[in-house]
């Protein structure tokens, strides 16, 4: 299956990565090449096979539903590119 420039633009947007229009042909070509490589998987008979969810046969661990950590807003915000008055700051979202 081959990816058109339009589809490449759509994937880039879904991935929230800005791609210049001039870069779309090369991107579409790269993605098509990778997908063509994956097409080999169609040769395999997977009828009745369960998709793997985890490699180790174990139940996901559970723990007591109690608070184990928290109360450290300054640590949480310490690496933010823009933090103000105890909050993460972002460009205006609502007009």
């Amino acid at each position, binding site marked *: 299956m081959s990816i058109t420039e339009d589809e490449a633009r759509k994937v880039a947007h879904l991935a929230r990565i800005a791609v210049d229009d001039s870069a779309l042909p090369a991107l579409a070509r790269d993605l098509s090449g990778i997908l063509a490589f994956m097409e080999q*998987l169609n040769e395999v008979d997977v009828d009745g096979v*369960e*998709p*793997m969810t*985890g*490699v180790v046969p174990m139940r996901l661990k559970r723990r007591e539903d109690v608070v184990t950590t928290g109360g450290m807003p300054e640590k949480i915000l310490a690496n933010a*590119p823009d933090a103000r008055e105890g909050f993460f700051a972002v460009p205006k979202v609502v007009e």
Partner: protein
Amino acid sequence: MSDLNRLTIAEARDALAKGETTSADLTEACLTAIDASGKLNAFVHHTPDMARGMAKAADQRIKAGDAAPMTGIPVGIKDVFCVKGVPSQAASRILDGFRPEYESTVTQNLWNAGAVMLGKLNQDEFAMGSANENSVYGPAINPWKAADGRDLTPGGSSGGSAAAVAADLCLAATGTDTGGSIRQPAAFTGTVGLKPSYGRVSRWGVIAYASSLDQAGPMTKTVRDAAIMLGAMASVDPQDSTSADKPVPDYESLLTGDIRGKKIGIPREYRIDGLPEEIAALWQKGADMLRDAGAEIVDISLPHTKYALPAYYVIAPAEASSNLARYDGVRYGRRAKLGQGDGIVEMYEKTRAEGFGPEVQRRVMIGTYVLSAGFYDAYYNRARKVRTLIKRDFECAFADGVDAILAPTTPSAAFALGASDNADPVQMYLNDVFTVTLNLVGLPGISVPVGQDKNGLPLGLQLFGRPFDEGNLLNQALVLEKAAGFVAKPGRWW
């Protein structure tokens, strides 16, 4: 003692115990070697003050008779591990300036054991790559040189770790292996690299690439050192829900050197078209060595091997696209400069376009595509079903009594830097053809240096073990290491 940085962990531990050296002296020797290693571009964040402080504490601990096997041992840490207060950016521009407020379980375990932190090591961005060329720091360089003097890749993604161990900048280093990122660089640099069973080592605080495949492990000069260091890194960790509830054995005590009666499988599907003659010969030599030591060599079949690489390149990018969604320019790292009127979507898109390198962008987009509506079943679910079949291959081999499997680690010796510049992405993915399978099935594997190619470059073989059977695996690797007698070191040019 001279050249303390050249010691193995076991040698240094014994010298420390006898009072023949101190952690302070070992650490200074490594720091001096690191200072003179700029051309290798292996260490990318230096922590000499931390190292000296930790060495001093280790010496006191040894004096007090409270030493653990790694106490006082200077190590390098792959950039992907969060170390509190130290830049930890997985070689990505998007994590520029990020200093974690917390410590990864692996590094905490190492510090608790008394190991000494020398600094952070170069790698491919978010551990995506096989040549360490996808790094915001620029490529790490292999201390081994090509016959014509060209710079070679140390492999990837743990290229800085492998280069640092091979060049004796540290006694050992941590790595992570999602599709071969510990074993392939180990093979390219004449060092030992162990990928443990999935769940043996905690992933807490390891910057995620593909969560169902990622596993941290030791990169060392010898198999014995790998046993010692795995013991220090591994733990049962409540912070990682996939950490296995199994006690950590004393791996070193299991190194008997006796593998008589063990059944070693040779998978015929690994004899791929175009396998270079010298790799095939090395593989045969390795099988002969194990047979001479009393193991039984048997031909086995892992019929779905061919599909491991395409399945990997669906599953790993899918998980990556999900994991890397967290880099949004809001909570940590770097935010792009915004233009007049840019809203939050522009902020995300510009930040991620500037912050991620080309290979990471490619994998995030491929992952987004295979997870998107309409393609989820055709690609992602199909790949997960093939993964089930690949695992079944191994279960059948083990059910037939096979104890371990021997295969080449890589289809070639280290290649020249820049070889990937114009290669199409799929060509680069083929470097992982012998290594990705193991991650898909969660088994432990170890690469051991066994020989050299016609140009004198190191070549490795890998052994795959049964689930959580690192003890036997290390023992078999020890036999291979002894029989191979690989002692070559790169000539110093840096």
